[in-house]
């Protein structure tokens, strides 16, 4: 076994704080390309009526932030009534397709908004960065504004995980030490809110502008699919994936 990888695994295991964990412990995943996988094709939509996007008046730095901000709690497509930013992942996957090649996690602050509002990342050995004694998946934080932001992450109980400054025009890096959900906000511009979901396997997707998502190349079998949305919370669906087929999942809200 590769000694460096082993040492990294040990180090990462020692650094995982229990509070952050919603997924199984670190690096239980092994790559074993499925011979013929299937896909989970999902849609999350409202049956009929759907919530309007909330618009708030800006109380701080209007020159940079504008006079109004549209909150992204519910981003609903008017035609399909599909809901954006729902994270879907298979519960407890321990083997399967390789992790996708990614360019790392980035969170931009532009016009006092976070971009993207919701994103997923992969908690895997090769994605880990080590700085001094800390190790984790690097989140690059970019401030394109001419005002100061703080980047404050809280766990589900509202306990601070980290709170770092983000100076105008400067990049900062924060290592996310474990799989799980990170809520990020700015205390100076309290409407700013973003979510990063770190998953320790590659079977995850986020619903798009029309409320659809696809999880590809799933080994045939029975799974528990977990869907999470910042306003709606969590829901589970049992799915059976067959080789070479699409398994449809439809979540209809209301009605």
């Amino acid at each position: 076994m590769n000694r460096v990888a082993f040492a990294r695994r040990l180090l990462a295991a020692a650094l995982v704080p229990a509070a952050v964990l919603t997924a199984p412990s670190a690096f239980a995943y092994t790559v074993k390309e499925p011979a013929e996988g299937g896909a989970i094709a999902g849609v999350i939509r409202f049956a009929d009526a759907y919530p309007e996007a909330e618009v708030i008046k800006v109380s701080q730095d209007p020159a940079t932030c504008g006079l109004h901000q549209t909150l992204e709690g519910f981003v609903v497509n008017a035609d399909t009534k599909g809901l954006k930013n729902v994270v879907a992942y298979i519960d407890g996957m321990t083997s399967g397709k390789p992790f996708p090649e990614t360019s790392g996690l980035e969170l931009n602050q532009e016009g006092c908004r976070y971009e993207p509002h919701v994103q997923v990342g992969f908690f895997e050995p090769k994605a880990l960065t080590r700085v001094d004694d800390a190790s984790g998946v690097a989140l690059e934080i970019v401030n394109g504004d001419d005002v100061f932001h703080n980047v404050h992450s809280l766990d589900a109980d509202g306990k601070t995980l980290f709170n770092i400054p983000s100076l105008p025009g400067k990049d900062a890096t924060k290592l996310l030490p474990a799989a799980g959900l990170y809520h990020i906000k700015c205390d100076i511009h309290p409407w700013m809110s973003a979510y990063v979901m770190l998953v320790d396997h590659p079977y995850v997707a986020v619903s798009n502008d029309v409320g659809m998502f696809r999880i590809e190349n799933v080994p045939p079998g029975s799974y528990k699919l977990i869907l999470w949305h910042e306003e709606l919370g969590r829901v589970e669906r049992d799915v059976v994936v067959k080789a070479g087929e699409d398994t449809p999942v439809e979540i209809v809200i209301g009605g």
Partner: protein
Amino acid sequence: MRPTLIPPRRFSGAGVALIALAFLPVLASPLFGRDKEERKELPAEKQLRDNPIVKEKQCITCHTIGNEGGTVGPNLNQVGNRRSADWLRRWLTDPNAVKPGTKMPNFGFSERELTALVEALSRMRRDINVNALLAGGTPVEKGRRLFENYDCAACHRIGREGRFVGPDLTWVGHRKREDWEARWLRDPPAYKPVTFMPKFGFSEPEIAALTAFLHDQQGQANTKSRRWEQTVAYYLDLPAKERGKLVYRRLACWSCHGEDAAGGIRNDNQAPDGVTPSLRKALAVLDDAALERVIRDGSRAGTLDPAAPAPFDCPAYAEAVDESELADLILYLRALAPKKKKWSFQ
């Protein structure tokens, strides 16, 4: 011919004057940078603002230094009077370890930066001649001089002055008893270990004067003008429950019931466990009318030991809130209760 023109002219003149009057409190407010006359800056204040670390980290986004800066965090002008070098170092090293959940980020200052900042912040102080401040005048006047000289407004608000880092004291005399204020001022951390309020080490004559001043604060600071919070809240057109949160802060409901009404603040001899209860339980059983009655008329705390000093009761706030504020406060409290969401997956 003229006389026929005069009435409409007069009318429009009065209208303009009325509109101008309506905006007067807004224009005169600090929000528009036209607070009362500028105070004189001390050299240390200008030096701190020009300090390269303070400039680079843009501390004045949130903190006022001298006559400039934001109001998100405390005013730093007399921070050296209230915080030790040791405390400042601990705070700057890891703010969240000192005050969990604080808005202040961890800047990751180097040793060199820490030393420079602690040194510069420690110089942010004014000499307080206690004997001179305690000489002459009524106890309330002495207390006011102490309040001003210790710069309590760095964290506390009275009327339109100060900020919301600590409890709003506009009505403090209305809701606290003098023996409590004295006990608190002697050693805040002994009373409430997690408090952000430092121990100033006041002498007994100082405590007597401050207590007299605080007990005198029964809302009169707000009566001369439109209430500051209302001005801000209505100007910003906040949703009602946000205005309610300002009322919750202004009345300092949170000093006993905690942030977001979670309870758990020490109240000796209160049944069943010596701490204030979470309001969420009360919210579950009281309807709006009953809730309004409790806020207006106060309520008695249950007592553990009848022989021991009584616990603090919830005072009557009938005199302290108007109808619209009461409605906003109730909306805010209702929004705290575990709400049935309008939308759910099921």
